[in-house]
């Protein structure tokens, strides 16, 4: 077994999340030795998972230690999952600073541990189609991906088969079906929404496609529907890299996994090849080096970009991957229109229904998706809706003004049913949305912090108007009561944690950072495999596509290595 510090690794992978896990698995299974450096600590399920913890077992009863969150996680606390149960999966913001212009707030939500953000991800898993990969050819804006759906399709197949994705086959050309496990059920509210939205508005309503197992799969039991996915999962019934891809990599005997190893920059030789990386021990702050024949950066889009920007040398004076000047540009994150909902009075009940379904419903993108009738000339690209209906637990107790036994009986027996819906839209890639190294600010380990300068443009604002109007139409057709209209503001950049695009893929080295195989144009043996390489982002969650790209890159690296090209 190789040990860190030696030079006998074939591949060095930075980051152990969705992307790094797939690269490590693919290359290790093909016989290459892998050193994986993860910036955060290992998580121990019986110590760090809070699955099945009850609110009364916590000091702050699930409401969170607000003082501690404000002091240590003033950014992370804004993420819905960074709560009393799961804050340990998110970074300490004091140690991990970044900056943004005062008029362009950006939320950078980060998880540093073995597994990265895969403990807390929302697990929605949709394939892109050529509606995303070739959007530029269709509407003339920006650039196509150099790869097509047909090229990525076998890797989507492979990823879905291995991790397990539940979903329904719908035959939609703009959102390809996958290799699905049986779909989840819809709630009463979602079934009603399906009926109304499909009949009255003509848009398809489907169960979310989620990386939760509905049947036992590859040695992992099916989901037990406890509704606690962000807290870890003892039964490994949803995809996270520490229980799915990384064990597969480890079982080959080829993987050396080093935690608490914060990579600061790549070590570049005069020839332009990477020799390895500098990293800093998270706990002791000792500076170390590791070397390998190939370096794969899979630290998450922004962190990967920071490492590349910080890798300045005589061969790469502006950072690795930046010869064409595209590194750090074209940052994208989905924007959402949120807060809409209302009560479904017909589903008010005295009977409590089972909860725990880890998904809701999705209205796949229809606008500008190829059907002439659904074309909207006011903006480019499109959006999707997702929502769910469910019973209130006790929120209605606050609204009933009386108190005492009779009031509590009403709380128990008059259970309102709430329906909520939001829209998520595509952000156009723009060179104005960019990240760079902050000239002054450094993190707790002395590594330059990232300066993030991004805002939504006119296209997003016009799209948001259409999204808001159509949400209102849905609320109207649903005949809800006490309707809350969507918030007029677009969500904060970064809030949806789908950041991507800052080391984009393309055939032209002047306009992109990596080639179609995720190899950096200006370095012989350096690859980026996470969301940084997205040329466009569509309106769907990026993780499944990140995994498919990573599996493809891993196989390409193994083949190239065997051919002696790396």
């Amino acid at each position: 077994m190789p040990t860190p510090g030696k030079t006998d690794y074939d591949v060095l992978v930075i980051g152990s999340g969705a992307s790094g896990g797939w690269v490590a698995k693919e290359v290790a299974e093909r016989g290459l030795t892998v050193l994986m450096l993860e910036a955060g600590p290992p998580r121990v399920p019986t110590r760090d998972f809070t699955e099945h913890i009850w609110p009364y077992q916590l000091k702050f009863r699930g409401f969170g230690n607000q003082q501690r969150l404000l002091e240590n996680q003033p950014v992370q606390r804004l993420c819905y999952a960074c709560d009393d149960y799961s804050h340990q999966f998110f970074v300490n913001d004091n140690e991990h600073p970044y900056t943004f212009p005062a008029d362009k707030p950006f939320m950078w939500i980060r998880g540093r541990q073995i597994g990265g953000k895969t403990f807390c991800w929302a697990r929605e898993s949709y394939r892109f189609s050529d509606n995303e990969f070739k959007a530029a050819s269709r509407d003339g804006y920006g650039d196509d991906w150099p790869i097509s759906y047909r090229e990525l399709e076998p890797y989507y197949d492979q990823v879905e088969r291995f991790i397990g994705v539940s979903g329904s086959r719908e035959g939609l050309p703009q959102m390809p079906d996958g290799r699905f496990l049986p779909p989840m059920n819809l709630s009463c509210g979602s079934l009603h929404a399906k009926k109304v939205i499909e009949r009255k508005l003509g848009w398809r309503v489907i169960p979310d496609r989620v990386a939760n197992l509905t049947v036992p799969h590859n040695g992992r039991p099916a989901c037990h529907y406890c509704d606690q996915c962000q807290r870890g999962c003892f039964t490994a019934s949803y995809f996270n890299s520490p229980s799915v891809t990384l064990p597969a990599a480890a079982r080959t005997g080829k993987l050396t996994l080093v935690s608490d190893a914060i990579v600061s920059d790549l070590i570049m030789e005069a020839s332009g090849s990477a020799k390895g990386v500098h990293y800093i021990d998270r706990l002791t702050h000792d500076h170390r080096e590791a070397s390998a024949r190939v370096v794969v950066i899979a630290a998450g889009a922004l962190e990967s970009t920071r490492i590349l920007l910080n890798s300045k040398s005589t061969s790469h004076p502006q950072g690795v991957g930046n010869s064409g000047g595209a590194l750090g540009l074209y940052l994208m994150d989905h924007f959402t229109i949120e807060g809409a909902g209302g009560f479904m009075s017909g589903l008010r009940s005295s009977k409590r229904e089972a909860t725990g379904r880890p998904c809701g419903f999705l209205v796949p993108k229809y606008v500008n998706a190829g059907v002439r009738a659904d074309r909207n000339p006011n903006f480019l690209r499109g959006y999707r809706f997702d929502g769910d209906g469910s019973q209130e637990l006790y929120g209605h107790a606050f609204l009933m003004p009386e108190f005492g036994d009779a009031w509590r009986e009403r709380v128990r027996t008059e259970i309102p049913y709430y329906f909520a819906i939001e829209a998520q839209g595509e952000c156009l890639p723009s060179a104005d949305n960019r990240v760079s190294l902050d000239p002054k600010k450094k993190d707790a380990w002395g590594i330059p912090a990232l300066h993030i300068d991004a805002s939504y443009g006119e296209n997003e604002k016009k799209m948001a108007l259409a999204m808001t109007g159509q949400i209102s139409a849905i609320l109207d057709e649903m005949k809800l009561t006490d309707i809350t209209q969507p918030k007029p503001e677009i969500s904060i950049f970064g809030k949806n944690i789908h950041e991507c695009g800052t080391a984009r893929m393309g055939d032209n080295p002047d306009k992109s950072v990596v080639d179609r195989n995720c190899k950096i144009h200006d370095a012989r043996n350096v690859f980026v495999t996470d969301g940084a390489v997205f040329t466009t982002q569509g309106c769907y969650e990026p993780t499944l596509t990140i995994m498919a790209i990573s599996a493809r890159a891993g196989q390409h690296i193994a083949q190239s290595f065997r051919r002696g090209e790396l």
Partner: protein
Amino acid sequence: MKKLADIASEITRRQWLLRLGEVGVLAGVSGFVPDALASIFDDTEKTLALPPGLYEPSADAMVHALSHHGMVIPPPGSESEFAVLSGPAFQPRFFSREEFAIVTQITEIVLGKIDGNTLLEVAQWIDLWFHSAEGVRQAALHLDPMHRTLAVAYYGEQDVRELETVDHATAAREGFAALHRTAGERYGKKFGQLDRQQQAELLQAAAQSKDEDPLRMFLHTLRNEAIRGYYTSAAGLKELDYKGNAYNPECPGCELGGEKSAS
């Protein structure tokens, strides 16, 4: 329908025995694993070892967690803040003993008849909430400008300003003063000396008063925290018939049967 035992049978006996060690950690019970099994664990760990941070499915860790309803003894190194069983020796940290007794009485009027232990648990939550409030406010006031900008963008200026300015400690002192003053004016006694009927009447009347009335505001806060405390207690969740945080063998669907008349 899949039973827990079926899931458990899908992992090997050796894995099961290995995982028993984890259960001991989870429960915080040292010595839970009999010495006689130690050699099996050693052997098993060698054959099944994954690097730290990776894990395999563990049905029994889940079974244990599902069946564990008492206080959790924090596993060493845990970053979670678990509740501590305080029992009769409880000392309020924000309220005086007299004030705590009054808060307990008000909680009982708000919630109606609930068991004594739960009532005490809820009153203790209210004490912790008030005790924590000033630290929260100070932390909000000391947010750096960038983090405040983000908070405003996320929550809106009004919510952020409220967090920075509302002084719950002072509001509580003013609330108690108003409570006693009102009790004196109406009944010639302190609140704690009134009978339950009189206390309830006083609270009902205060709830109808003007928005900025300090007694109304204080009682509003007490009521909100009583609701949050009670419906996060074991008794409150049971009363709601909450069915989450459980083992469901099948994906919950539509069980209300009212889909056709949904609206």
